[in-house]
């Protein structure tokens, strides 16, 4: 019986290993930490597998990866979580930003990676789930346990911040 459970768990959840590792890496920003977090998350997921009845194994697993990452960061006193998450950040006016400037810098992989890495964690996670994991708003809401409206407003703010950073870097280099 236990062997069957293990087999069906592996079948449902192991295909999402890359997604799990990608999210854990973007949250912890470190190779070894990401590996430890993912392994821990899989063990937790196996324990809770009896409670999983849905069809969306990826959202379910990523929610566990996310929680495990946050717990891990708390235990290791990551400065990341020391500020309060504020969804009412002041809007950055960006109507006069020139899309060509972005295009120019868009090609520079290293700068984009660094800019994304330096975003606050609550912005980083929604962008990673949306742009790299290509999840729908609903899937992101289910993974992050946030209301749909919050997912959308965080995504909008995350994008504005990222544009801002990339543009100012581009301007600095001119």
């Amino acid at each position: 019986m236990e062997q069957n459970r293990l087999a069906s768990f592996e079948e449902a959840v192991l295909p999402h290993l890359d997604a799990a590792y990608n999210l854990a890496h973007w949250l912890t920003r470190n190779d070894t930490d990401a590996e430890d977090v993912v392994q821990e998350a899989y063990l937790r997921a196996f324990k809770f597998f009896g409670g999983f009845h849905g069809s969306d194994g990826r959202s379910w697993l990523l929610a566990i990866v996310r929680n495990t990452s946050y717990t891990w960061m708390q235990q290791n006193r990551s400065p990341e979580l020391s500020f309060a998450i504020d969804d009412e950040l002041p809007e950055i006016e960006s109507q006069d930003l020139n899309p060509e400037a972005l295009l120019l810098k868009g090609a520079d992989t290293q700068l984009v990676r660094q800019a994304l890495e330096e975003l606050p964690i609550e912005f980083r996670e929604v962008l990673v789930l949306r742009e790299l994991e290509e999840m729908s708003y609903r899937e992101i809401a289910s993974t992050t346990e946030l209301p749909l409206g919050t997912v959308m407003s965080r995504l909008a703010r995350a994008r504005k911040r990222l544009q801002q950073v990339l543009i100012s870097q581009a301007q600095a280099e001119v």
Partner: protein
Amino acid sequence: MNCQQAQELIQSYGDGELELAGSLEVERHMQECQICANAYSRHTTLTSALKNSSLYYTAPDKLEKRIRASLRKEAKSEQPRRAFVWRWATATVALALLLMLAFLVWRPGSFRSSGDELLAQEIVSNHVRSLLPGGSHLTDVLSSDQHTVKPWFDGKVDFAPPVRDFASQDFPLYGGRLEYLNNRTVATLIYKRRLHYINLYVWPTDQAGSSAETTVQRQGYNMIHWKSGGMNFWAISDLNAVELQEFARLVQQQQ
């Protein structure tokens, strides 16, 4: 659509989360408005910058092996633990069954009064006799209409038994008759459940107040007995206890 509305929808449009009608409106607006068209172009530029920068971290092969190994270990250690839990669960269920059995055996003891015991015997005999083919009779008045059955008792008994049809709850009224039980004339109502007959005996009680229902089993018949509204009620049938309870509840609710 004005600029503010469009600005709010551009992100959802770019993410493919907008329904068709909304998408068409956003597109129409952007054809006329350069500011919103720029906002959309920033959105797509950023999206492609993120997609083209190979930002995705792929899990190293050794991680999958590591996870498979740790899962197998976990599954093995859980196996005996689960078996242990199962043994306890089985023991608990067995104990619960034993207690239930003891309760059922003990329960008729609570039905102590010898008057009630005699009456129960009398009711079983009456119920059986009423269903014997030929000779005896099940109904004096055969009707499923409560307005026919209830007046029929007028002048035959010195009380007005509550008569109600429960056809909508699958206990249709079948008829009524008179019986001589417990040294008096009692009203008897007959109900049906599928092929089962239920005899409901009703007569006034000399004690005020009501009493909780008592269930009794005799010779394979289920009986439920209670007092309420100044009446004695005895329901008997070869129906299962659960459905007879359901019937008793219906009768109690109509009062």
